[in-house]
């Protein structure tokens, strides 16, 4: 069998988190009763006209700048005409001739090798509504809430060669856009959608093979599976001496296979022409500079700075900066209480554990730096021990409790009364003569048992270190 190379390009649609839609004042909020986030403009009523949301342009430019694109300082909109019930005007306002960003790139790393994936262009467009099939009535309903939500479409060059590279690209893109604050990039909510253009060719061939387009992958894992599946399918087609048909295929994750949606014969002619209801957008040098100045520290730079400034290892820095929210909380907490290694441990270990348990993403983290700082401060001052601290932290994470109040209410403060401690320890020693004997005979573990018993007796409200010290004193 011949060796084949896979060539992949991506078209990624990203919903922007502006407050209102791209051409009207309706809210972009996800969810809501059907057809309640609408107006005559986004439902395409007769006589309605679009007015461009300036924030959309700002976010698109920000995305372009952060991905090394050239910004088109004179940019226009075009109409893409086709009929479908989720498209109320029967055309989508998009950009074909003069997209807002061009010729950028994103650096990715897979298997230790760095590579730049080219970005061909980024353009602004409006989202369509949602079709919902009602099985009881056997009819299709339309919800126009999503109509007019602003999108940027990021078109890559066909530079990717494997599912790993695709995932790396998507993860990097997601990070950049989240750091910029232009999108929350939640695939499961549809605020990030990826269409895969894939073809195969013999290794060393100069021409590209015929490509297919795949849609409807709802997670990174599904994307990886779709790529594998389509690569195999195309190779099989070629090995049988047939030709790959240029078509759009819909990925079915349950069946782990794809189905042809429309063939070349049904290819749409979108009859693009410049949108006459909108005027061209001119982006001045001043505005461009303003947007650039607003750009927050991006992940790579932040990671390096963490390693230097807080003297934490690369692994820790990478994890802490894997979501901007996490990094923000880290920095804010360190600003209050110092101790970067300690703060980082709480975030990397306990926080990540609790996030995983509750099935949430780091981007959604809603942890108060003040409260975490206060907790760490209390450990430092010996007011609570680590066991108690973990419990309190869980409460801060889940219920946003105030640590000081919680500790007071539940009487979790560490008992630092040496006298009480000694009394308890003496009692335990008295009750466990065998362990005492074992320890005196050299079994270190026996000491641990006695510490444990003491902790149990003190309901964990003691400092195990101090118990250890006192025991050693007594048992000598």
């Amino acid at each position, binding site marked *: 069998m011949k060796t084949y190379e896979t060539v992949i390009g991506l078209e990624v649609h990203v919903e922007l988190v502006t407050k209102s839609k791209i051409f009207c004042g309706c809210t972009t909020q996800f969810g809501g009763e059907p057809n309640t986030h609408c107006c005559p403009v986004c439902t395409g*009523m007769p006589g309605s*006209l679009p007015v461009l949301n300036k924030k959309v342009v700002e976010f698109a430019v920000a995305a372009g700048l952060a991905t090394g694109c050239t910004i088109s300082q004179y940019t226009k909109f075009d109409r893409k005409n086709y009929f479908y*019930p989720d498209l109320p005007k029967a055309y989508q306002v998009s950009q074909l001739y003069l997209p807002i960003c061009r010729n950028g790139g994103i650096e990715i790393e897979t298997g230790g090798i760095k590579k730049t994936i080219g970005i061909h262009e980024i353009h602004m467009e409006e989202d369509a509504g949602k079709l919902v099939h009602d099985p009881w009535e056997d009819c299709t309903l339309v919800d126009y809430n999503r109509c007019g939500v602003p999108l940027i479409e990021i078109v890559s060059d066909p530079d990717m060669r494997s599912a790993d590279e695709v995932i790396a690209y998507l993860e990097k893109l997601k990070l950049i856009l989240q750091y910029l604050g232009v999108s929350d990039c939640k695939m499961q909510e549809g605020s990030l959608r990826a269409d895969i253009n894939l073809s195969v060719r013999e290794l060393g061939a100069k021409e590209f093979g015929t490509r297919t387009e795949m849609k409807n992958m709802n997670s990174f894992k599904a994307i990886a599976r779709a790529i594998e599946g389509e690569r195999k399918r195309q190779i099989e087609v070629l090995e049988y001496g047939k030709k790959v048909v240029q078509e759009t295929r819909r990925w079915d994750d349950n069946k782990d296979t794809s189905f042809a949606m429309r063939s070349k014969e049904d290819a749409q002619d979108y009859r693009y022409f410049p949108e006459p209801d909108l*005027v061209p957008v001119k982006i001045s040098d001043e505005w461009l500079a303003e947007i650039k100045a607003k750009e927050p520290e991006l992940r790579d730079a932040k990671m390096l700075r963490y390693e230097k400034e807080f003297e934490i290892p690369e692994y820790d820095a990478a994890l802490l900066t894997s979501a901007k929210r996490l990094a923000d909380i880290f920095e804010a907490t360190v600003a209050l209480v110092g101790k970067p290694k300690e703060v980082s441990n709480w975030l990397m270990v306990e926080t990540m554990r609790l996030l995983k348990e509750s099935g949430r993403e780091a981007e959604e983290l809603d942890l108060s730096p003040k409260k975490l700082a206060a907790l760490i401060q209390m450990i430092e001052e010996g007011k609570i021990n680590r066991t108690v601290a973990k419990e309190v932290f869980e409460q801060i994470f889940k219920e946003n409790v105030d640590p000081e109040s919680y500790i007071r209410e539940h009487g979790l403060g560490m008992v630092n009364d040496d006298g009480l401690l000694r009394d308890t320890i003496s009692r335990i020693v008295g009750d466990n003569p065998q362990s005492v004997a074992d320890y005196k005979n050299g079994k270190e573990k026996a000491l641990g048992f006695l510490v444990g018993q003491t902790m149990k007796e003190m309901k964990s409200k003691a400092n195990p270190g101090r118990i250890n010290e006192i025991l050693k004193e007594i048992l000598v």
Partner: protein
Amino acid sequence: MDLLKLGALELGQKIKEREISVIDATKASLAAIEEREEKFHCYVTVTAEEAIKRAEEVQRRIDAGEYKDSPLAGVPIAVKDNICTKGIRTTCSSRMLENFVPPYDATVVKKLNDAGTVMLGKVNMDEFAMGSTTETSYFGVTKNPYNTEHVPGGSSGGAAAAVAAEEAFLALGSDTGGSIRQPSSYCGVTGIKPTYGTVSRFGLIAYASSLDQIGPIAGNVSDCAAMLEVITGHDPMDSTSVNRKMNRYTDSLVDNVKGMKIGIPKGYLGSGLDEEVKLSILKAAKSLQERGAVVEKFELAAVEYAIPAYYVIASAEASSNLSRYDGVKYGFRSSDFEGLQELYKHTRSEGFGDEVKRRMMIGAFVLSSGYYDAYYNKALKVKALIKQGFDRAFETYDLLLGPTAPTTAPKLGSSLADPLKMYLGDIYTVSVNLAGLPAMSIPCGLDSKGLPIGLQLIGKPFGENDIIRAAYSYEQSHGVIRPQVCGKETV
């Protein structure tokens, strides 16, 4: 005194002076409508009840001291049926929107409400504004009040006829290729298409977005200027609306054209122009010359390409603008279909008339891949050349003068059989829309059949003031030509 013979401003004045009540004016108009509609059929929807209620409200507010700065307060008006009126059905004279009730008012309707006018109803038009005779209306033709065997023109035929027949004191029309000016010309009334971007298009049901403008139709220049003043202004809801300090148009109602340079494009006086119309136009030009204007003929570039460029561009934009009428969300839906494709096909086949379909097919074709460059792109280039031609002309002239239409109103039923011939009748008006310029049609006489002839004055971008001044001056020299409603005498 026959109330209906008053001009709109005259009526407004008498209302302010408490000589006439808003209710009386409204009732008089409604009575005229009741009496004359069977003959002329200007209206699609008469909102008699709402008009009476509104008249009472306006009178109350006038009595309370409001509308002091609104000279048109209390004046009954008609609105073309492609302009959205909240709660009142807006049909575009099409089966497709036969029962469509907009949930909002067009910006111009809001402005006229704020100025205290009283809406009598929605007037007839060519379906979706596509046509030159109002014969493509789904609700039946409108007849020319001067001679009911003739068309009133189009597409704002109902609006022009209503003013001519005294069924409204003022009307709002829309103009994409001549649809205010040509029916004004055919019906012997005064209508102006403003500079593109001057009047908000928000709420105007779109035909060709880059060419459409709403404008007033009135019985005289002063009334026209007054209504124009109310409806112009920047609208943040319309991205193509210009933000510019406008002069008060009524300040230009001055009889002084001394030194004004007026050019007559030679190409406008060529073959195809009716002799009587030509004579009437040249007589009017001479009038202005006698009053001090400098009038001369000149060569205007690219005249002959205007019609094909217009029909390519307008049809292209229309094919896209009318795609939303798909039976899914509002308007007509076929009752006989299986599956989505048939829903679309049958709804649009049954909901649209022939002329609309014709233009949408042309539009889809000229935008299709493989033909876009040869037709649409080419037409855009021609559009730029036409504008250049006008720009050059306006380096020398303040105004251009010519006929509004090559003939007077044709007979009913004589136009639709030959659409191309009908399109050629737009020769003097379409280039104005392509260049985005302002232009007014004023009556300048009758032909031997007793049908009105219209004089067109074309101005520079935002040059409405010069147009109004010249038109007013001409009117002063001839007296206002009162509409002659089927046998009634003119003043």
